[in-house]
């Protein structure tokens, strides 16, 4: 590892965080859709949804958090694309810095921005009556899973950020990610779905993650589901980092 890696990453992270501080609209646009969905599903549709015995907002929040992150990470693709477009990406590349630092700074920025978004959404949910008896360890486990999930999706977002030839192309990949929670246990139990849909829903990553978060919030045993969730996140992370690295090396050679 380059001896300047940590220092360079810190400097570039400071730069990107300043971007966020100066245009907080990236946080606002990230949280507005999940909050609207919370309101819509809890106060409009929720009354007609049969999802367990507790209050619907308790059932809903884990899926909403996944949607928040899935929409938040597309800004990483956007920021990377803008850097490439403006030429500052090449300036960094021609400087004596650790090359990986350029990507890591964007990834860590995404982590910070998504963490802020998640906290905002959780606060709104609390105001709407979300309650959890989860202890410190449970909350830490929730945070850990969300961090891992954010890292995996952000590295996925790095790929179009490096490869896209238009700004629309750079952010369009996030739409299927935002849609994935709808065909999962995020809004309604999978048991209510017809055969093939149910098979898909029960075997895609969002369901295992959402179920694990829900179990942690409601102090239920997480069972083996947590390992499935962690395996999905870790697997996705490894694949995304590998492809992002390949794309990056192709870009800079």
């Amino acid at each position, binding site marked *: 590892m380059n001896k300047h890696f940590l220092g360079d990453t810190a400097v570039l992270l400071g730069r990107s965080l300043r971007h966020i501080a100066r245009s907080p609209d990236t946080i606002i646009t990230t949280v507005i859709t999940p909050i609207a969905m919370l309101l819509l599903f809890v106060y409009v549709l929720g009354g007609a949804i049969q999802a367990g015995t507790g209050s619907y907002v308790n059932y809903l929040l884990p899926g909403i958090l996944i949607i928040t992150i899935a929409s938040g990470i597309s800004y990483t693709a956007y920021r990377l694309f803008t850097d490439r477009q403006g030429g500052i990406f090449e*300036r*960094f590349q021609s400087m004596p810095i650790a090359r990986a630092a350029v990507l890591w700074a964007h990834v860590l920025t995404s982590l910070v921005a998504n963490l802020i978004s998640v906290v905002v959404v959780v606060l709104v949910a609390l105001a709407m009556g979300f309650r959890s008896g989860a202890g410190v360890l449970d909350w830490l486990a929730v945070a850990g899973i969300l961090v891992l999930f954010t890292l995996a999706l952000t590295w996925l977002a790095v790929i179009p950020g490096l490869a896209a030839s238009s700004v629309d192309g750079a952010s369009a990949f996030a739409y299927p990610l935002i849609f994935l929670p709808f065909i999962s246990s995020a809004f309604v139990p999978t048991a209510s779905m017809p055969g093939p849909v149910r098979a898909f829903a029960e075997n895609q990553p969002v369901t295992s993650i959402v179920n694990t978060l829900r179990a942690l919030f409601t102090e239920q045993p997480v069972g083996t589901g947590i390992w499935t969730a962690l395996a999905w996140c870790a697997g996705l992370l490894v694949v995304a980092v590998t492809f992002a690295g390949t794309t990056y090396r192709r870009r800079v050679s």
Partner: protein
Amino acid sequence: MLPCMNTSPATDRAEGAVIHVRGLEKSYKELKVLRGVDVDVARGSIFALLGSNGAGKTTLVRILSTLLKADGGRAEVNGFDVTTRAADVRESISLTGQFAAVDEILTGRENLTLVARLRHLKDAGPIADRLLRRFSLTDAGGRRVATYSGGMRRRLDIAMSLIGDPPVIFLDEPTTGLDPEARLEVWSAVQELAAGGTTVLLTTQYLDEAEHLADRIAILHEGRIIVNGTLAELKRLLPPAKVEYVEKQPTLEDVFLSLVGEQR
């Protein structure tokens, strides 16, 4: 066809060359952009690379600044091979690309401190303030770059390239899209640099720019350097000038600059 005027032997490195290129080739798919470029640039000189759009100027600069790998041939900058010693090359150079590579959301001063920190220098703040003064940007230093004019951006861009005093600076079409005044400002900045001992390789499509600034001029045409010499040497390639008496008309540039200059 003009004769090749490389004064140095084609195989050996010229004495004191800080940029040394031999037989450099690069293709994009079927399109051969560089077809064996040979060039040497002496330390502390301003070297202008002329060529029309698509002649391969930017490709050559990108290879020399380690952003692109050549398909064949050799290139050394400051004694380091651009492929095997890329990190050392990056330590020795600064690149100012065709489009001002500045961060729009940061202020001018923050852009400068950012580069100073990335070059691992202490006292990033004082370095930034000195450069702001030198490029007449002190008043604008606290403003976001998004509010800057094209000329101010270019000046900031060049100021960012000077941080850390790299011995070699690449300026890729530094005055494209600038108004005449901003152009003169860039020219004087380039001349100052060379006076301080920095080697400047600049690409341009403006012949007067090369004529005004460069110690040596090379013309890149269809992927090869077809001529390389001083302005006087280049002029001798054509038949001697005939003496004619012509009334000297001011150029539009003279008119523009004198009018605008008076109002300042």
